[in-house]
C-alpha cells in the first residue's frame, strides 16, 4: 500500500486525451527538457517566475488567506508507512509553524482510502480533513462526488512554479485535475535489481526488456516477483510489459476495444505463462505490495524490487539497507510516469491553512528538501527540474486497459 492505492483506473475519464502516440509525447518531453537545460532560458524563466510569485504573494487575496490561516491547525491525511515521508512532514510542520503560524498535523493512515471513506461518510458537510495526499482512483471518485475544493491553482501563488507542461501534470490517470488537486511530486516506474540478476548485460545498463527479465528468471529461479495486481505497482509492471511486448501499439493508448484486447493481450499472458513457473514461490504467491517486495528484497529473498520513486535506490543505499552495487533499471520504452497530488476537501475546516501548507510544499525550499532529503521524491517545479535524474517517460495506457488487465489477470492467475 502506498499513496498509489488506485486499484482500478477511472473509466469515466475523458476518452482521447492521450490520443497522441507515445513517441510523440516522448519527443515533446525531450524538447522541453533540452530547452530547460540551456542556461539562459532557465535564468530568465526563474527571474520572471519569481517576480510573478512575489506579485501574487502581495495580492490582497493571498494576504487575506495568510491572515485567515494564522493560528489554524491543518489536519493532513497522508499515508504514514514511510519513515522518510513522515520525517519530511515533521520538518515541514516545523517550518510552516515558524513561517506562517499554522500548525500542520500529519494524520497517518495505512491507506488513503480511509480518508476517502471518511469524506464519503461526511458527505460534504463539515470535514475533519483539511488536506489529503491522493491520486488515481481516489481522486477521480472524490472529484466526481464533488467533495473537493476547486480553483486551487489560482488561490495558491506557488502553483505558478509547477512544471505543468514539461511533466504533463494536467491529468491524474486520465482524469483532468482541473484545479481540484495540485501536483506534489512525480513518480516514475523503475526496478531495483541485485547486480547479479542481469549480469549478462553490462553493469552500466539502465534499461531492460521483458526478454531480459525472462532470461534472468531462468538463470535465477525463484528470485523474481512483482506485487499482486490489482496492487497499483503490480498493475503498472504488467502495463510496462504489455507496452514493451507490443512495441507500444497505438491501440493501447485508446479505448480498449474487444478487438484490440483480443489482439494485444495474448502476448502478455503468453509471456506470464512462461514467467510465472520460474518466479518466487512458482507464482503461487506474490508480494502484497511494493513495500513488501522491497522488504523481501532487503531480506535477500528476492533479487528484484519495484518502485515509483526514481531516487529510491540511491536513498536505500545511503541508509545501507540494500547493497551498494544494486542497479536501477527502467523499461526500454521509458518509465510510466505520473504525479501524486494534494487536495483540499470542500468541507475542510481550515481551507486557508491548507492552502498555505500547499504553498509551502511547492516552494523551492520544500521541494528541494524533498528531493535532497531521505525521501528523494523528484521535484515538480520548474526551477528544480533535473533532467539528469529524470527517466525517459512512457505515456500511460488509456485508463480502460487497467480494468481489463486486472480482471483478466484475476481470471487467469488469481485463483
Amino acid at each position: 500500500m502506498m499513496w498509489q492505492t488506485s486499484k482500478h483506473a477511472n473509466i469515466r475519464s475523458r476518452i482521447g486525451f492521450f490520443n497522441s502516440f507515445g513517441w510523440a509525447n516522448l519527443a515533446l518531453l525531450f524538447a522541453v527538457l533540452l530547452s530547460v537545460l540551456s542556461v539562459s532560458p532557465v535564468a530568465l524563466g526563474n527571474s520572471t517566475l519569481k517576480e510573478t510569485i512575489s506579485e501574487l504573494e502581495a495580492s490582497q487575496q493571498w494576504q487575506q488567506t495568510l491572515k485567515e490561516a494564522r493560528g489554524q491547525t491543518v489536519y493532513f491525511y497522508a499515508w504514514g508507512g514511510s519513515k522518510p515521508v513522515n520525517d519530511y512532514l515533521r520538518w515541514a510542520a516545523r517550518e510552516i509553524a515558524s513561517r506562517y503560524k499554522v500548525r500542520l498535523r500529519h494524520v497517518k493512515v495505512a491507506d488513503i482510502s480511509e480518508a476517502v471513506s471518511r469524506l464519503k461518510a461526511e458527505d460534504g458537510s463539515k470535514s475533519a480533513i483539511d488536506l489529503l495526499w491522493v491520486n488515481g482512483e481516489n481522486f477521480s471518485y472524490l472529484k466526481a462526488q464533488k467533495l473537493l475544493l476547486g480553483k486551487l491553482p489560482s488561490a495558491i501563488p506557488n502553483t505558478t512554479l509547477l512544471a505543468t507542461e514539461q511533466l504533463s501534470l494536467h491529468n491524474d490517470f486520465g482524469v483532468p485535475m482541473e484545479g481540484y488537486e495540485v501536483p506534489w511530486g512525480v513518480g516514475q516506474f523503475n526496478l531495483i535489481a541485485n547486480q547479479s540478476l542481469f549480469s549478462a548485460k553490462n553493469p552500466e545498463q539502465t534499461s531492460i526488456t521483458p526478454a531480459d527479465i525472462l532470461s534472468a528468471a531462468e538463470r535465477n529461479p525463484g528470485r523474481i516477483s512483482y506485487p499482486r495486481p490489482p496492487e497499483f505497482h503490480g498493475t503498472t509492471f504488467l502495463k510496462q510489459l504489455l507496452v514493451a511486448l507490443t512495441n507500444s501499439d497505438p491501440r493501447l493508448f485508446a479505448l480498449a476495444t474487444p478487438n484490440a484486447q483480443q489482439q494485444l493481450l495474448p502476448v502478455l499472458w503468453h509471456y506470464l505463462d512462461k514467467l510465472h513457473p520460474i518466479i518466487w514461490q512458482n507464482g503461487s504467491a506474490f508480494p502484497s505490495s511494493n513495500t513488501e517486495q522491497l522488504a523481501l528484497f532487503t531480506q535477500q529473498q528476492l533479487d528484484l524490487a519495484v518502485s515509483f520513486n526514481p531516487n529510491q535506490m540511491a536513498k536505500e543505499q545511503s541508509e545501507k539497507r540494500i547493497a551498494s552495487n544494486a542497479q536501477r533499471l527502467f523499461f526500454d520504452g521509458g518509465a510510466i510516469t505520473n504525479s501524486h497530488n494534494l487536495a483540499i476537501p470542500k468541507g475542510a475546516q481550515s481551507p486557508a491553512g491548507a492552502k498555505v501548507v500547499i504553498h509551502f510544499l511547492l516552494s523551492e525550499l520544500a521541494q528541494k528538501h524533498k528531493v535532497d532529503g531521505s525521501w528523494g521524491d523528484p521535484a515538480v517545479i520548474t526551477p528544480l527540474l533535473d533532467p539528469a535524474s529524470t527517466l525517459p517517460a512512457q505515456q500511460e495506457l488509456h485508463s480502460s486497459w487497467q480494468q481489463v488487465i486486472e480482471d483478466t489477470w484475476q481470471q487467469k492467475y488469481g485463483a
Partner: protein
Amino acid sequence: MNNRLLAKSQLSPSNQLYSAIDLGLKSTAWVLVAIIALAPLFGVVIGLWPAAELDWAAISRFLGYNGLAYSVASTLLLSLVAPLIALYIAFMVYSQYRFNRRWQSLEKRLAPLLSLPHLAVALGLVYLFSSGGMLWSVLWGFVGQTAPEWLGLPRKSMLTMILAISIKEVPFFLLIFSAIGRQLAIKQWLLQGRALGYSESASWWLIVFPVVLKQSRLAVLAAMAYTLSVLDISLLIGPNIPELYAVVLYNWQTGFTPDEQTFAFLGNLLLIAMLGVLIACIYIHERLVTKQLANQAVMANPLNITRLSGVFTAWLGFFSLLTLAILATFLLWSLGWNTHSTFNTANWSTSLWQDEWFFMQGPLLNSLHIAFFSSILGVGVTLLALELQRHNKRYFPDYLWLLAILLPQLSMVYGWQIVHTSSNASYHSSWIILSHVPFTFAYSYLVLRGPFQSLNRHYELVAASFGYSPWQRWWKVRFMLLRPALLSAFAIAFSVSIAQYIPTLMIGAGRVATITTEAVAIASGNEQSITAVYILVQAALPFIAFLVASILAQRTRGSVDAEHQ
C-alpha cells in the same frame, strides 16, 4: 431491633416508592446495556444500508468473481482449523500443567506471552523460520552451508497462516481454560477417573475435555471470528493465489466503483453467513467429540494415545523461547541491524528510538487513557448486564452479547462514523473511548460470564443472614469474590482497546493518534526497523496490563480459590 423491624415492614407507601425507584433504575440500566450490546448491530445496519442497489446481474457478477469459491473455502478452512489446533494444544498443555508445580510458572508467564501482537508473531515466524530465515541460517552457518530450501516455512501460504494463528492463540485459550478450570472440580474428577483405573491423561480427555469444550465455545468462536476477518497478517503471510477472503472483501470495501460497492455489501453478508457456518461447525465438532469420547468411556477404552500429551510439558519452554527470539529479532531490527550486516558491520544505533520517542509520547498517553477508561467502562457494563440477567433469572444467548466480536468491524464502525459526523459531534477522545466500549464489553463478557454465573449463591445467602443489605452483599461478597476474574477481564479489555485501529481512526478522525494508529500506518510501509520500534512499544502496553493484573490477582483470593483446591 424488633420495633425497627416492625416499623420497616409496615411502611408500605415508602416501599412502593422504593420499588418505583428500583424499577426506574433497572430500566435505565437495561437501556444502557442494550445500547452498548446492540451498538455493533446498529452500526452494521447503518453502515451497510445505503450502499446497495441490488439486482440479479450484480449478484451473478459477484458469484462469478474468479476465485471467490476457493477464497471462501480456504478461509473457512483456516478459520476452523487454526483455532481448533490451538484449542487442542492448549488443552494438552493445560492438562500437563494444571496440577503440577509447573502451573505457577505458566500463570506467571502467561502475561508476556499473551501480549505479543498477532502481527509480531507472524512477522517473527517467517523471519525466523522461512528459507533463508535467521534460525536456519544460524544453524546451517555452523557447518558452513546454506539451509536447504524445502526446510523453510513458505513466506506466504496457508500453512504459514495456520501455524501463526494456532501458535498465537494457544496462550489465549490457556487463559480461558484457567478461568473455566477454577469453576470446576477437576481435581476430584481426575481422582475419580484414576480410582476407576484410567490413566490421568485418559481421565483428562474422557472426563474433563467434554465439559471444558462446552464452556469454551465462546472463546473458540471469538478466535474463529478473528481469524475469519483479520486483515494485516492475511496480507503479510496469507496465501494470495487465491487471496484470503478478508483481503478480497477489503479490496471491495475500499473501492468506489458501483460494482465494488455492491460486492462489498454482498461480501459482508457472505462474511456473516460464513460466521454462521463456523458457529454450526463449533456445535457439530462439539457433538462429534463428546459422542466419540462418550463411546470411548462406555467401552472403557484406556486411551493410551493420550499419553502423547506428555510432549506438551515442553510447551512453556518452547513458547517462551519463541517469544524471546521474536522480541530479540525486533530489538535487533530497531537498532539498525539488517540482513546485510553482520554483528560487527551493523550500523548499531539508538537514533531511531531517540527520534521516535519524542513523537511517541502523545500517542502513548492517548492509548493509555483510552484503554484505561474504555476497559473500566466495558467491565462495568458487563457486570451490569450479568447482574440484570441474574435478577431476571434468565440469561440471553451469548451471541447477542458478543456482536462486537462477531460482526464485520469495518461496516460497523463506518455506520457509527456516519452517525457521529452527522450529529456534528466533536472528535474528543471521550468519543473514542465510547467507540471502544462495545469491544471491551464483548471481550470482558466473554471472560466474566463463566465465573459470574457459577459463583455459588450461598456466599451471598450467608452474608444476608448476617444482616448485610443487597448492595453490601454485592460489593463485599460477589464483587470481592470475582476480583481475580475481573482483573483478567480488565487486562484483556485493556489489550483489546489498545489494539483498536479502525474505531480510533474513524471516530477520532485522526485528531487523537494512538500508538496503534501510528503502528498500523507505519507497518503498512514494511520498513522493518521502524516497524520493529512501534511493534515493541505496542506490545509493551498490554504486557503492562497483564503483568499488573497477574500481580494483583496473586494477592487477592476469589471464588477461584474457594473450592476444589
